């Protein structure tokens, strides 16, 4: 039993911190948020060189073969900086291919994801807004040993930036008859269309599929056998998102605490008043409790997979509620300047709005917790 990070993980954290402080301070975040790419290709290349794009991928394919706990360290820091990049999407795509793909497929796609030459994402949501295998209604139309895909995937993270779209689709009526195809950017009939995200540091959009052919060599795992794999990817997405939420929520708290120490009214720094001090204390309780829930979940993914889904759902449900409140209180405690574009606290509010429903909202995840408890 040891509830703490290892020495190497603390070292990793310091390196990432240094990189982000130097390369992506808030002015740069704001600039990238307004750019058309939405991220810096130069920084992306550096991330790859530092080994952080393939953090968990097998060494044989250019990865560092580290664990989800290491990934949490990385993502806490990118979240703290609101670092704009397709890091979570690419991490998820890589982990799904590593998990489900054949050696041939891994050899084809993973090195590119690890060396930064390609960006991946997963296109899971459809019109019904139902997360998980049950929500996958897009049907593959068989043609020979291939399928034709036609339809739309919604709110696909980094859809326009991605070179590889992982597309789950239905191959039969049973709920779990799901396949996942890897569709490459230049595939005939596939195109990504961006939509304005409430948080401009996160990119999203629609994936349009029009008679896109996917052959057997583009399917991850056997057709009709990827339902569990899909659930797992979505779990990992929730976990990765929570790690970024921890960093962002902690930053929002820190910014607001600093403001409360410096802004004076009625002859005192406002942090002297309990109407300010107490909500800040509650934010601290929420952030620390979320850390506990998430670190356990991250450990469980690698070491105790049976308890991982419920542990992740607890963390994501908690994160959605807690971060929502932190975003709202953070603005309010700033007073008028909190409502300006100039102060950074609004960027965290927008992140909280983006994060609440991504990879499942609190209702969705509490329902999974209830089920895990036999309710």
């Amino acid at each position, binding site marked *: *039993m040891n509830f703490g990070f290892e020495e190497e993980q603390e070292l990793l954290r310091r390196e990432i911190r240094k990189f982000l402080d130097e390369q992506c301070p808030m002015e740069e975040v704001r600039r990238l948020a307004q750019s058309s790419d939405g991220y810096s290709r130069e920084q992306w290349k550096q991330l790859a060189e530092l080994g952080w794009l393939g953090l968990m991928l097998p060494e044989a394919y250019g990865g560092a073969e580290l664990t989800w706990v290491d990934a949490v360290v990385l993502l806490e820091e990118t979240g703290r900086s609101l670092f704009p990049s397709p890091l979570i999407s690419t991490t998820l795509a890589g982990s799904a291919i590593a998990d489900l793909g054949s050696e041939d497929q891994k050899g084809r796609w993973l090195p590119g994801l690890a060396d930064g030459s390609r960006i991946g994402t997963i296109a899971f949501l459809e019109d019904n807004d139902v997360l998980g295998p049950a929500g996958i209604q897009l049907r593959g139309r068989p043609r020979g040993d291939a399928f034709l895909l036609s339809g739309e995937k919604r709110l696909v993270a980094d859809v326009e930036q991605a070179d590889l779209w992982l597309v789950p689709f239905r191959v039969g009526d049973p709920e779990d008859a799901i396949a996942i195809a890897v569709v490459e950017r230049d595939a005939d009939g596939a195109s990504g269309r961006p939509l304005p995200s409430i948080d401009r540091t996160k990119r999203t959009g629609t994936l349009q599929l029009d008679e896109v052919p996917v052959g057997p060599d583009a399917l991850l795992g056997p057709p009709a056998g990827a339902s569990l794999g899909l659930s797992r990817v979505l779990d990992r997405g929730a976990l990765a998102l929570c790690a970024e939420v921890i960093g962002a929520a902690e930053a929002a708290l820190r910014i607001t605490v600093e403001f409360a120490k410096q802004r004076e009214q009625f002859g005192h720094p406002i942090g002297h008043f309990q109407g300010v*001090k107490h909500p800040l204390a*509650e934010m601290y309780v929420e952030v620390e409790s979320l850390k506990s829930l998430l670190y356990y979940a991250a450990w469980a993914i690698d070491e105790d997979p049976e308890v991982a889904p419920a542990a992740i759902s*607890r963390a994501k449900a908690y994160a959605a509620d807690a971060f929502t409140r932190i975003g709202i209180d953070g603005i309010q405690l700033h007073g008028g300047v909190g409502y300006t574009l100039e102060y950074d606290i609004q960027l965290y509010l927008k992140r909280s709005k983006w994060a609440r429903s991504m990879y499942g909202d609190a209702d969705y995840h509490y329902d999974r917790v209830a089920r895990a408890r036999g309710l």
Partner: protein
Amino acid sequence: MDFSFSTEEEAFRQEVRGFLEENLPDPVPTTPEFLREWNAKLRAKRWVGFAWPKEEGGGGGSLIEQYILKEEMSLRRAPPLGSDFMGLAWVGPALIRHGSEAQKKRFLSDILDSSSLWCTGYSEPDSGSDLASLKTRAVRDGDEYVVNGQKIWTSAAKQAKWIFNLVRTESSSRYGGITCLLIPMDTPGIEIHPIDNLSGRPGFNEVFFTDVRVPVENRLGKEGEGWRVVMGALANERSGISESTEMTRKLDSLIELARNSRKAGRPALEDTSVRRELAAFDTRIEAMRLNGMRNLSRQLKGDPPSSETSINKLLRGALEIRMAELSLEVLGSASQLEGPWQNAALSFHGTVIGGGTPNIQRNIIGERILGLPKD
């Protein structure tokens, strides 16, 4: 990060389970004879004060093993480990940390044998949350202190043999004028008046001191060091109050209640708001458990419990309120009657106020952890 238990720890868990299988009847008897026998058996196994050092008569067990022991005991709803609750939870640890050899010899084995019973004299009529303003005077007279003043809300004072008592030995220094005295409750000059709690039961007491003579050797720590002693004791009290295992049992019972109830004509468990609330409780209790493990890890690295324990005290306070409210909601109109759930909804306030109110916990976090100005 490692949440697994070692083979020795797992073996210890099996030992505890085996012991409970053999020695704890179902249902658990509540007679005084059974409790006496039970305490003696636990004592023989050195499971009372299990994590205290062997040289002090404890079990020399690790904090992890103690956690396992408490968890297994609570799972089977076993009576507490030893019956001198305050003696075990904070008086003993304070003696081990600050006591002289003679004091340790005199008090520790009685606490472990459940043959002593301690009560705690902090609060006074004019000094509750503002504990450091306490006024009960102790004036040195040769080898004795002469104590005059009044304590209030003293739990178990009627039954207790000893009181762990804070007095003022110096009026000019707020914190440095506080001293801790260990006083036999049958000393001439001590008078006890019970106070009925809101359920009509004698829950706590007023304790009056009139020229009570206490030998100097009964002082714990140096004169003027009482505040230091009590800060450690309060952290221990708070981490105890916050143990999640008790909340887990409460949630089990609440789920049972919901399972057997109907709400608006339908099974209560089909009500989405009831399900969501129960899942949120499950999640928050898990956060408490994991926060506790994190504190434990810190202790293993040599940091004694501190302000961090206020996190779980706040989580627990909020949970008690919400869980009680849900139980009444599930009971429906019957919540107007007296009954076990209804009574619990009245009595949880004791745990929320005792050991320091939520506002005081928020002040502690705001000031000691976040560094906001004191009010």
